[in-house]
């Protein structure tokens, strides 16, 4: 089953098994079914609860918040992750504030689903991975499904979460077949972090100590099966740790894996400065000082905009080769 089919199926199940879930977003009316077709078929079958909307991301985010305060569990689709900047004030100064500023008298169980990521030549404003804008906001969760655990199950978990969740999908993963069990030369385990969200641990070896640990999430996992099986041929033992809750971070769990390897590579698709890898590096420095044998290596997009030209886009975004090279350099 593909990532997209799995998401679509879970949305349908949520509509079938609950009465409080409302799904809305731009262009999700059938037969169009949404720009990336994640909601296809749902509006046709649940016309009262699956609503196509005007192009008003800011107001839609506030609508979701208001619905959630009065007992519903809205799922808002933002067509491109780039457009979540339009939701920002509603997330920062409304949805994320209400629970605490009203002293726990309300909850705000909203889920904002959105596809981030480049690789399709959409250029500077339709290709970004800007989830880092949300990492610094207290009391929200940022969740990124990968290919190693079911994105649909994760989405259900996000919808049932009483906190606001920004649910970061990746455009290039939609057609990808999931790898929730062991694949050729790759062992997949799923653990639960303290918040109950899954963490995938993927290894290219079956016994012994890892040489290098790799930390990444979401869309970058599309590179992992091939990287890990290639490096297995070079007898390099890699453990990849892929949290689905990417903010706040399950740092204790991640720290144990990093300590076991003693070498850490962190990969993300967004720009590197002030990003996920920057925070994670800082946390590892606090947790693991003296336990790492090499400086932490970060792989990320270059600190610039994402050009439309295929050649230039490839030059800016992190690639499988970048990650593989970094992993190899850790053991030189």
């Amino acid at each position: 089953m593909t990532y997209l089919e799995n998401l679509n199926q879970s949305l349908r199940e949520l509509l079938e098994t609950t009465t409080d879930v409302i799904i809305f977003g731009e262009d999700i009316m059938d037969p169009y079914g949404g720009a990336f077709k994640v909601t296809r078929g749902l509006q046709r079958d649940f016309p009262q609860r699956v609503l196509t909307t005007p192009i008003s991301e800011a107001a839609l985010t506030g609508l979701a918040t208001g619905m959630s305060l009065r007992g519903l569990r809205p799922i808002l689709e933002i067509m491109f992750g780039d457009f979540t900047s339009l939701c920002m004030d509603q997330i920062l100064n409304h949805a994320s504030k209400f629970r605490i500023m009203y002293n726990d008298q309300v909850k705000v169980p909203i889920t904002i689903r959105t596809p981030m990521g480049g690789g399709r030549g959409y250029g500077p404003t339709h290709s970004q991975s800007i989830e880092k804008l949300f990492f610094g906001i207290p009391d929200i969760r940022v969740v990124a499904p990968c290919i190693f655990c079911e994105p649909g199950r994760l989405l259900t978990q996000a919808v049932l979460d009483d906190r606001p969740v920004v649910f970061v999908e990746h455009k290039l993963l939609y057609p990808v077949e999931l790898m929730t069990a062991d694949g050729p030369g790759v062992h997949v385990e799923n653990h639960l972090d303290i918040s109950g969200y899954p963490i995938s641990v993927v290894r290219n070896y079956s016994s012994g100590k890892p040489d290098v640990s790799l930390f990444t999430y979401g869309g970058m996992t599309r590179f992992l099966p091939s990287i890990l099986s290639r490096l297995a041929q070079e007898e390099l033992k890699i453990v990849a740790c892929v949290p689905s809750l990417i903010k706040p971070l399950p740092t204790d769990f991640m720290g144990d894996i990093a300590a076991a390897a003693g070498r850490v590579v962190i990969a993300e698709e967004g720009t590197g400065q002030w990003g996920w890898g920057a925070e994670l590096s800082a946390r590892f420095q606090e947790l693991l000082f003296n336990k790492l044998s090499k400086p932490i290596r970060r792989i990320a997009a270059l600190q610039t905009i994402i050009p439309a030209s295929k050649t230039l886009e490839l030059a800016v975004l992190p690639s499988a080769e970048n990650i593989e090279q970094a992993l190899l350099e850790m053991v030189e």
Partner: protein
Amino acid sequence: MQKIVGGAIARKGATSLRNEIVETGAGVASREELKWRLYRKMVQIRRVEESLLQLFSRGLLFGTVHTCIGQEVCGVGVTQALDPSRDVVWSNHRGHGHYLSFTGDLQGLISEILGKAGGACGGIGGSQHLHNHNIYTNGILGGILPCAAGCAFAEKYKETGGVVAVFFGDGAMGEGIIYETLNIASLWRLPMLLIMEDNGYAQSTPKAFEHSGDISRRAESFSIPITRLVANEVAIVWETAARMIKEIREDQRPQLLALETYRLAPHSKGDDNRDPQELAAHWEADPLKHHREELVAEDGNRLEQLEQEVSEEVQHCIDAAISDKPMETARFLKYVDQG
């Protein structure tokens, strides 16, 4: 018993129909009693906010307050026409009056503003971030409108019959999110009463420097019915709001109530650059003053007693808030993200 709900646009003199029984949000009352109740609410808000300004100057109030001194008619007239058991109110940075009138939670409001554990939100929210049962306030202009629309969607979806009232000022009409929300509220027929309290100023800036055209008419292009009123007579505001709320409940579509009002006190505390002559003229026309004069003429003793009671209860709550403690820091720390 004859029930009068709303009626056509209320007219001056409606208040003289003394013995009619009217349906208020909180039950039925004679029109005569309603008049006393509305005045009591207004004078309570005035006393609270005057006291808050004094507490600030004495250094007993940390933070800021935005008072609605001069605008009490708006909040009281509208919220007293709502049904607190099922209707919802959203308000803004200038929300003490709306909160107090809708909830009656005098102690919760005062303790909250003084940052004490007994406050409506444990002192975490403060003046601009209040919540109690069906009222929510926030300090970001315009941003409350889609939240209110989401509540209206939920009440409609759950078929509770609830109407959502949302208060905003003329200044907020510069925020784009308001127009996104007006569009959706009308398109989706959400049961909302939109109340624009037009006090002529956005903080320090006169309306003429802020807006082109007639801001109340902007809702017309979204097919939202508009009722305009000079908010001087609380009974007329109440009666107009009651009519609109009844229609919104029945028709399940939004309406806008544009209230012309004036803020007598500064935007927040001492920050007032308005022409003293203009201010003096408006103080002369203070709505509370003529409501009071009317009640003095009716029953001076009762009025004196009412005002005495209000002053005492406000003072009592202030004393209690001053002797209350802030929330223990350790309790607040449960709100820190782990991980």
